[in-house]
């Protein structure tokens, strides 16, 4: 009996195997056995991935770089957070990067990376990303993969509907999630209605060097501006923002902001406002915000406090702003590659609302209005609606596109990725996500030319997907092959922090531009030591400046005497290597800031304040060579009252 049962199970298994094999891969849901998912994500040792993915770190404040389809992480790029690995935000050169009107803010909540575009195509020059908490927009240079610029956004709070770029990177756009009094003032919170404003900031990007500056801020009614996306193609020149809390509640928003059947997508004709501003429109208002710029040649950041900003009242520019009623607190607003469909992901509903840009323009021309909000015309829902994807799932958040006529929408509550047809509005496929997906990313997803090969869903809950690591887990991303009719789950991989969106790009567009070293001959750092003979130590009052060089495998100078308790010792260290991937580290015992990791040709500075008499060592932290352990030196620290002159040496025993 038992044997026969075993045999029948075996038979079942075998038939199962065979049926799997014979049915081929039309149905993508057969697991690794039938569909060779493993082969599809296998990037052989020494081979390169096909795509880069820049994944936001959420509360880590940083941006991580992954390869697709392997899911391997290559780098964490420090953006808004201090990063002791490299000394970012600790070194004298990079501390100004984290300066704000609130002082030094060494952390943030990094949300939505977006890659620069030219003519609606990813050009791979920069990645922009928003700091949500202390409103900031950062720019990462894709030659060095380093943060080179951060601009603070005034009159904002909760910089969430950011940082998306227009078709030619004319603007990177930042919208405020929290409306606040503008200018800030001491008023009762229940005076919210009417008194609070929502600033939508259009930050121009210099086409040559990428330098950012706030062109204008549009002062909108006090709703919550949740997400945004640019128009493209036919709708280029417009920008779309979702809103919630159009009730303008100020307490228990969970309930009070969920009462209106419909909130709005705000459609902003930025071309029109730009023209208005170029003709002298708008009002300069006093402001205080930081603009921090890092220079690749001085290897140093400077922070400038900006004192005014141009604000625009939407009522002063008739025909520039309209409100599109959209059901149930829409979260994401996504524009398809053609620029025609404006998709509202009503997060408290089961449906997706698709507006038509063409119908919107017609409704505006024919003045099909349904009243106004603070003077801004509300368009009639029926006049602009193209259709609804019915009962597609529960809690839609974000939609991306494959450039082949399909949309891919994440459903947070029902925890799934749903593929639907942009023409028929019918659901084609749905795949469970593990668990509770937030954003989905298709490389080039926010552009006119997506690369519809993979979709990455970024999940909010991990639970049992990996080996347990105590209560705190990394988040989990999932890679889908989207080349077939049905989506196929290929891979789970953990992500750092909490990814809120990612931006993907074919590796071929940027990898050849990736810089290998900084040229020493181009180093313009104020305290660089270019010629070896210039290594020296200088005293200025209680400041001691050490001009030091490092090359395999020694520091010059390596022994320094004449430093006293109470001195501020500046180590200005220049890496003299000009060879790819030969950084050196610097670590000083008792340093209250961080170590340094210095790339070939680069100069970095750390400050050390010795508190005790003695002879204190420093050393290289990056295993640079066979003689790495020999790469060390000493600083002799004498009492405050000592008269010992400064002296330094190398190699003279």
């Amino acid at each position, binding site marked *: 009996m038992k044997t026969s049962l075993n045999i029948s199970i075996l038979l079942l298994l075998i038939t199962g195997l065979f049926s799997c094999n014979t049915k081929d891969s039309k149905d993508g849901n057969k697991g690794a056995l039938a569909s060779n998912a493993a082969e599809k994500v296998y990037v052989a040792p020494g081979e390169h991935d096909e795509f880069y993915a820049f994944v936001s770190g959420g509360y880590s404040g940083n941006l991580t770089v992954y390869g697709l389809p392997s899911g391997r992480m290559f780098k964490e790029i420090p953006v808004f957070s201090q990063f002791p690995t490299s000394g970012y935000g600790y070194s004298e050169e990079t501390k100004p990067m984290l300066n704000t009107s609130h002082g030094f803010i060494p952390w943030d909540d990094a949300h939505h990376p977006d890659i620069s575009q030219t003519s609606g195509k990813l050009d791979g020059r920069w990645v922009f990303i928003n700091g949500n908490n202390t409103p900031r927009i950062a720019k990462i240079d894709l030659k060095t993969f380093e943060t080179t610029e951060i601009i603070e956004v005034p009159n904002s709070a909760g910089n969430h509907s950011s940082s998306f770029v227009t078709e030619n990177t004319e603007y990177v756009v930042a919208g405020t999630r929290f409306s606040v009094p503008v200018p800030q003032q001491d008023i009762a919170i229940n005076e919210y209605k009417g008194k609070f404003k929502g600033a939508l900031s259009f930050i121009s990007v210099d086409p040559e060097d990428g330098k950012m500056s706030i062109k204008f801020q549009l002062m909108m009614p006090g709703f919550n501006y949740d997400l945004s996306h640019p128009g493209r193609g036919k709708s280029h020149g417009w920008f779309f923002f979702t809103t919630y809390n159009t009730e303008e509640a100020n307490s228990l928003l969970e309930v009070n902001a969920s009462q209106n059947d419909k909130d709005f997508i705000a459609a902003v004709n930025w071309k029109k406002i730009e023209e208005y501003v170029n003709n002298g429109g708008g009002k300069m208002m006093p402001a205080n915000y930081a603009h921090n710029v890092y220079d690749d040649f001085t290897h140093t950041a400077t922070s400038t406090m900006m004192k005014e900003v141009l604000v625009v009242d939407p009522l002063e520019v008739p025909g520039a702003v309209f409100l599109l009623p959209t059901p149930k607190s829409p979260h994401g607003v996504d524009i398809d590659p053609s620029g025609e469909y404006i998709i509202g992901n009503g997060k408290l509903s089961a449906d997706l609302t698709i507006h038509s840009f063409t119908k919107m323009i017609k409704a505006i021309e024919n003045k099909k209005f349904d009243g106004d909000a603070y003077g801004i015309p509300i368009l009639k829902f029926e006049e602009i609606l193209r259709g609804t994807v019915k009962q597609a799932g529960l809690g839609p958040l974000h939609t991306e596109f494959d450039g082949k006529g399909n949309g891919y929408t994440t459903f947070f509550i029902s925890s799934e990725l749903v593929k639907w047809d942009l023409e028929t509005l019918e659901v084609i496929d749905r795949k469970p996500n593990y668990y509770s997906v937030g954003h989905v990313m298709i490389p080039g997803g926010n552009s006119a030319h997506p690369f519809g090969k993979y979709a990455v869903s970024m999940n909010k809950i991990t639970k049992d997907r990996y080996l347990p690591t105590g209560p705190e887990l990394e988040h989990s991303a999932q890679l889908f092959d989207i080349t077939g009719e049905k989506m196929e789950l290929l891979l789970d991989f953990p992500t750092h922090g909490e990814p809120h969106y990612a931006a993907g790009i074919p590796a071929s567009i940027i990898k050849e531009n990736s810089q290998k070293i900084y040229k020493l001959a181009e180093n313009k750092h104020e305290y660089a030591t270019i010629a070896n003979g210039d290594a020296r130590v200088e005293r200025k009052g209680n400041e001691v400046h050490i001009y030091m060089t490092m090359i395999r495998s020694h520091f010059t100078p390596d022994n320094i005497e004449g430093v006293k308790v109470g001195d501020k010792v500046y180590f200005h260290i220049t890496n003299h290597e000009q*060879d790819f991937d030969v950084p050196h580290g610097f670590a000083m015992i008792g340093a209250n800031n961080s170590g340094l990791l210095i790339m070939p040709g680069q100069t970095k500075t750390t400050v050390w304040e010795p508190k005790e008499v003695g002879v204190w060592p420093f050393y290289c932290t990056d295993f640079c060579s*066979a003689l790495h352990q020999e790469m060390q030196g000493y600083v002799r620290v004498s009492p405050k009252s000592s008269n010992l002159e400064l002296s330094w040496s190398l190699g003279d025993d």
Partner: protein
Amino acid sequence: MKKAGLIMIVGSLLLLGLFKFPLWNIMLGAPQYPEPMGMDIYITGIQGVQEFDIQNIDGLNHYIGMKTIPKPEEMWEFNVFPLVIGGMAALGVLLGVLAFFGKVNAWLLLGWLLLMSILGVLGMYDFNVWLTDYGTNLDPNAIMKMTNLDGSPMSYKPPLFGHQKMLNFDVDSYPALGAYLMFAGMLLTLMAFFVGKYEWSKKHKYS
């Protein structure tokens, strides 16, 4: 001897390629150098294949006590070689012109080739002497003093021609474009000799 003269002129002029292209190339690859570093040896000096190769080769060589790669002013060869090559090219062209007008016979062309070959061999000999000194005359205070199994100090002399494994490096040493142009030129002068001989005998048979 019109044809022979022309061939001789072209052959001699090909020597001038050495002023533009390297004579020899030595590449050094290692596990941690997937993109090998390299030296291009010109008759006027040594240059890195990539911008910082010389600096990086010197940086590694200091571990085993090798001298730095010489600058042009540190070796007399880089002053003399251009004069020799230029002189031989000029002489070859002169012989070619004379041959063209039938003023010299083919044996003189062969004489040029013989002289050029002797000079070439001398050049190679000198190059090898330098390579030997470079690879064996090491700093007694070198960081790493490597020995062979029999206890003798290890030599880092790069091969004159071909591939050799040296510690973690694979060293490849081969002629480069300048040398190939020179060889082609010398072949042409040999051809000029045979053509010239034929033309000379034809002319003198019927005259």
